[in-house]
């Protein structure tokens, strides 16, 4: 079983996702990076699912896909509203939370 390759792929995707979340200024791209992170988790789940020969991992992955879809829906709606109010989706301009 080629479990290592899958795990490496998952790790690489995860790192790309984290990099995107931290570095990108565009809110939509950050959402996309979050998707990458979620999908790297899915790859791990499915890899271990295959290794152990059950269905649990696949079912978890399906749940994650469904939740991710909902999350992106909400996230994009928020981005849209922010864009309507301020004509920008650059995250650097959204610093009201500054303490």
């Amino acid at each position, binding site marked *: 079983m080629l479990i290592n390759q899958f795990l490496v792929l998952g790790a690489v995707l995860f790192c790309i996702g984290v990099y995107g979340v*931290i570095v990108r*200024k565009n809110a939509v791209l*950050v959402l996309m990076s979050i998707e990458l992170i979620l999908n790297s988790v899915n790859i791990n789940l499915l890899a271990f699912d295959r290794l152990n020969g059950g*269905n649990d991992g*696949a079912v978890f992955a399906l749940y994650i896909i469904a939740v991710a879809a909902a999350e992106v829906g909400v996230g994009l709606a928020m981005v849209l509203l922010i864009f309507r109010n301020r004509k920008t989706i650059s995250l650097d301009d*959204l*610093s009201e*939370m500054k*303490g």
Partner: protein
Amino acid sequence: MGWFLEHAWLIPVIPGVAFALIILFGKRMPRGGSEIGIASMIAALVLAGGAAYQWINRVDSSHEEVTPVLSRWEWFRIGDLRVSIGSHIDGLAVVMLVLVAFISTLVQIYSTEYVRGDRRYTHYFASITLFSAGMLTMVLAPNMVQLLLGWEIMGLCSFMLIGHWWEEKANSEAALKAFWTVRVGDMGLLVGIAMLLAIFNTLEIGKINELAAAGDFESKNLLMWAAVALFIACIGKSGQFPLHTWLPDAMAGPTPVSSLLHSSTMVVGGVFLVARIYPVFHIGLDMNIAGQRFNLVAVIGGITVLIAAALAFVQNDIKKVLAYSTVSQLGYMMMGLGVGAWTAAVFHIFTHAFFKCCLFLCAGSVAHTGSHHSFDMKKDMGGLRKRMPITFAAWIVSTAALCGIPFVSGFFSKDEIIDSAKYNDYKIFYVVGIIGAFMTTAYMTRATYLTFFGKPRGGAEHFAHELEHEHKTSRDSSWHITVPLVILGVLALVSGYLNAAPFKWHWFEHWTESSIGLPFGEGTFALPHPPEFSWSAAAPGLLLVAAGFGISLWLCRALFGSETSRLRGLTQRNPLLGAGHKFLVNKYYLDALYEKVIVRGIAYPISKAAYWTNQHILDGIVNTVGKTGRRTGDLVYKYIDQGLVDGAVNASGTTATSAGGALQPVQSGKVSMYGALLFGAAAVGGLVLVLVNT
């Protein structure tokens, strides 16, 4: 078996790979990626042609029932359910593969001229290639999941292509409307697929057909609901009544896109799905109301034929006339499938693809050269007959095919549908069919008259002056545009002879019908055999076509030919006609119904109810809790707080203030910094976990 049949899965893979290449390297290519797209479509066409050749050999050399050629790999597995990906090649798949690859190739060649210099030239070719890949994936799907995959790829690409010029708000709204309207139907597809899995315990198309045709299911009621759910998807995709409203708006995209969308891909998807798992619809939607047995597919198709044809009369935009004509012709296909004329309906998909693609490309050619990029027939066209001879010739041939003039392709397919309706006990739909043919001829005569005859107006007049300056009598579009027009025009003329009932030529039927798993033979749901052709049976329809041409020509001459006609402004003077005209112009108020009544009707009461709950119930609770809390608080304050706690609180407060001051820089308000902290903390946590566990 044949190499091409076994490797048919390459056909969608090639454009799929081409899409990736165009996206990655297209901008650096000398022709902006269009060469990759065209090359991939030609490769797909060659493979599809090879597959068609070998399939015909296979059918001709076999004396028994022909079986489909399957090649599959496991895609994923959940529990015992194994879903495969691959190809399922039978007559229907072969027809569609050749058709899609062929039309896509021509449309891409045409596009190189039509969208030349566009700012998103590369993206255009990327999307249109992926679009073809989606349709090809769908037509050779061996199971419902791959079909869904192709279906959704097409939905996405149609959104991108319709909204290609999204800078204009109307275009991006049209794209959204197309996407969401089709999505309404797509829910039905998901539900329907799940129900099919529950009923037949398999997702393989071949097996579903076999089991449904053999009546091997527990309850017909359940099958009916599955078929209804799937049919909703077909209504959405194929623009059937009442979800047809997105199709005319989809004209916002570039003309080659409309042409591809409306001829062989996208809108045919719904009809294809009905044809693909035909036994499910044939048996599932077989209704029996008030002693009258009928099929729901035929009813929806019949309604669509008439309402769409009526709408085509009041359009001034040439592309919208063609759009409603497509809706109406799709209605014919659905009607054909509903009345049990499977072959005739599939044959109509085949012939319709050529002549409708040709008509759209002609409209594009007129706008590109003759009318200064306007599609308004009344303002910017007229008198282009001699000035654009090739376009005119292709238009006339395709119009003849669309109207069903004898010995042109459309006649053979449409007449067989109408004939089958008559012989299979659908008398009403026979009448609907011939009235539809009458209306088709009438509105196409109107469009032809306005575009090519009479005096040039607006943009066309300008074009005429340009020609006079250059001392030319005609100037057609460049060869990128005219060559596809000529090829399609010739095919619009001759493609019907593959299945010409008057001459008893039935090759198309012979090659496609086997191996689908249609329920021929005996039984309650047996399909009737196609009726024998006779000129006397075709005569009423042909007479009505002739009448439609005559009346429409007379009206057009009276209305648009002279300035002083009594008929001019009739809709303003006669209140009854005016009301009818307004009703049609407003598209039966269906758009208003969807937006104002349904969307608001559902959204407003919900928000009102939520507000009421919020104000009365939640606030009441909160207020009571608040009042009680306050009284308690007063007591506590008096005795405990002041005396006992304050000291402790003050001490902790001071501590908190200093801690807050220290941590303040962390709260920078920068999302990326929060993200970095989050992942940093997670990494530390993970490290601790590893250390603890080892």
